[in-house]
């Protein structure tokens, strides 16, 4: 399948000044993501995962190396808007990314900026709102909505641009469990039904377990890159870089350490139940 994101030897440093030295946050990242993939990027604070996300959208430009999105170099200023249409971004704090006081006008914001004619804009806004199940709230004020609903509005605003891929930077970090569930199921549906490539930056292991592929970052490098099943089977390595594994994986791991015969690649509750049943 075609590659949508190609990252080659990406280095990035935050510039220091005369007193503080430059801080190198990304130290050579190679990563390719195929069209339609659902990728989770894991890493603890300071691992560079958010910095990586900001490169896909050209908010940050590489100090060294290259980032290509659907063949467009992010450093190419002439194609900046084309690029940002292809790769939409959803941020952590829902309040700080909603521009308008009316839901539907916020969803239309990107289309207004791109100069999309009215009829098409109306159609795309309505479709996007329906896709995230927020059509009934189109005339509400964002301040009347819950965190999960606001985040779905932000997703709708990105979908309206008809992107090839969406990068979500810890979209559920500020939400309650209900909101997290809403947002996750929305993202998964977008991926399944519309074939949009998803790059989900998260620190929730159970969210990562639902993705097709997990990339684990540590200290500015990619350390693991595989299916969630394989990544989480390296329990020791994952724990060493300060991350957890899903609770069921951890349970199976502890059982195995205690000498019970359970498989090492359990990531869902059902599998865990089956494995434990077999013990008796």
């Amino acid at each position, binding site marked *: 399948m075609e590659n949508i994101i190609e990252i080659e030897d990406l280095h990035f440093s935050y510039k220091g000044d005369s007193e503080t030295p430059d801080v190198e946050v990304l130290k050579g990242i190679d990563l390719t993501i195929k069209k339609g993939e659902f990728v989770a990027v894991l890493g603890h604070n300071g691992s560079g995962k958010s910095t990586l996300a900001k490169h896909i*959208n050209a908010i940050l430009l590489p100090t060294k190396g290259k980032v290509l999105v659907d063949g467009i170099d992010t450093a190419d200023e002439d194609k900046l808007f084309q690029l*940002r249409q292809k790769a939409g971004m959803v941020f952590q704090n829902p309040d*700080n*990314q909603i521009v308008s*006081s009316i839901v539907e006008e916020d969803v239309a914001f990107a289309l*207004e900026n791109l100069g999309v004619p*009215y009829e098409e804009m109306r159609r795309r806004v309505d479709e996007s709102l329906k896709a995230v199940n927020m059509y009934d709230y189109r005339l509400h004020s964002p301040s009347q909505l819950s965190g999960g609903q606001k985040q779905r509005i932000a997703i709708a605003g990105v979908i309206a641009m008809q992107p090839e891929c969406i990068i979500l930077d810890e979209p559920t970090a500020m939400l309650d469990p209900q909101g997290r569930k809403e947002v996750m199921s929305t993202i998964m549906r977008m991926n399944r039904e519309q074939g949009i490539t998803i790059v989900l930056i998260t620190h929730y292991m159970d969210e990562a377990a639902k993705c097709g592929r997990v990339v684990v970052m540590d200290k500015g490098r990619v350390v693991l890159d595989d299916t969630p099943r394989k990544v989480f089977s390296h329990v020791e390595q994952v724990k060493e870089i300060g991350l957890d594994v899903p609770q069921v994986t951890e349970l199976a791991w502890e059982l195995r350490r205690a000498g019970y015969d359970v498989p090492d690649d359990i990531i869902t509750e059902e599998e865990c139940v089956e494995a434990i049943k077999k013990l008796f």
Partner: protein
Amino acid sequence: MLKDITIGQYFPGDSIIHRLDPRFKIIITFIYILMLFTGSNILCLTVGAVYTVMAILLSRIPFKMFVKSVRPLLPFLIITALLNLFLVDSGDTYFHWKFLKITEEGVNISVFMIIRIVLLIMGSSLLTYTTSPITLTDAIERLLSPLKKLKFPVHELAMMMSIALRFIPTLIEETDKIMSAQKARGAEIDSGSFMTRARNMISILVPLFISSFRRADELATAMECRCYNGGEGRTRLRQLKSSARDYIALAVTIIFYIAAIVVAHILK
């Protein structure tokens, strides 16, 4: 406490008033203000009152919201009315005690002023209640767009205004949170002398400012991500189309204005 502020609030709806072209609504509001100030007699203000009540009924917004809009200005209204009542000295004297004197003119002026200002607030609240702030800014932007030729940054100002409006509820909520947090640490905000309270306000304002800067930074990034590039070549979801309805509303307003002028002259 902070949540009681209704100025700038918007109540979504689908009434005739809601559906009027916001550009017309702004112009109509200006004519309305002129109408209220045409003459100082009871008939003239009755014309204004009838017009206001009619518009409020058509908007289908509960009347108590309009009462609420006037409430914050009540102390100011009462003080001005009392000053007028006692200090204006012309016409028949109704009451005289030492330097206090209530005259016919004083009563008239203070009563008319109260009615006029109450109507003024209600009428302008109707504009913001029935027009989404962003539509309103949109309309202002379009009404002012001829100024673009003079290099006046109309779009930028409109954008600033609409973002400010968008963040009012967010910042109010945040202020409430910070206040609770500081109270939990023993800050005297509701009690203590005026000076203590004023000093303690700093402990609310500093975190509020810092978080506003952070929000501004994040919002700017989010706007860039959604291809914001200034006013050049932008299209709008909110289409402003004037229809027969708008011209009728304008005509009705002008008729009321003329009626007010006529009444003011007849009763001179």
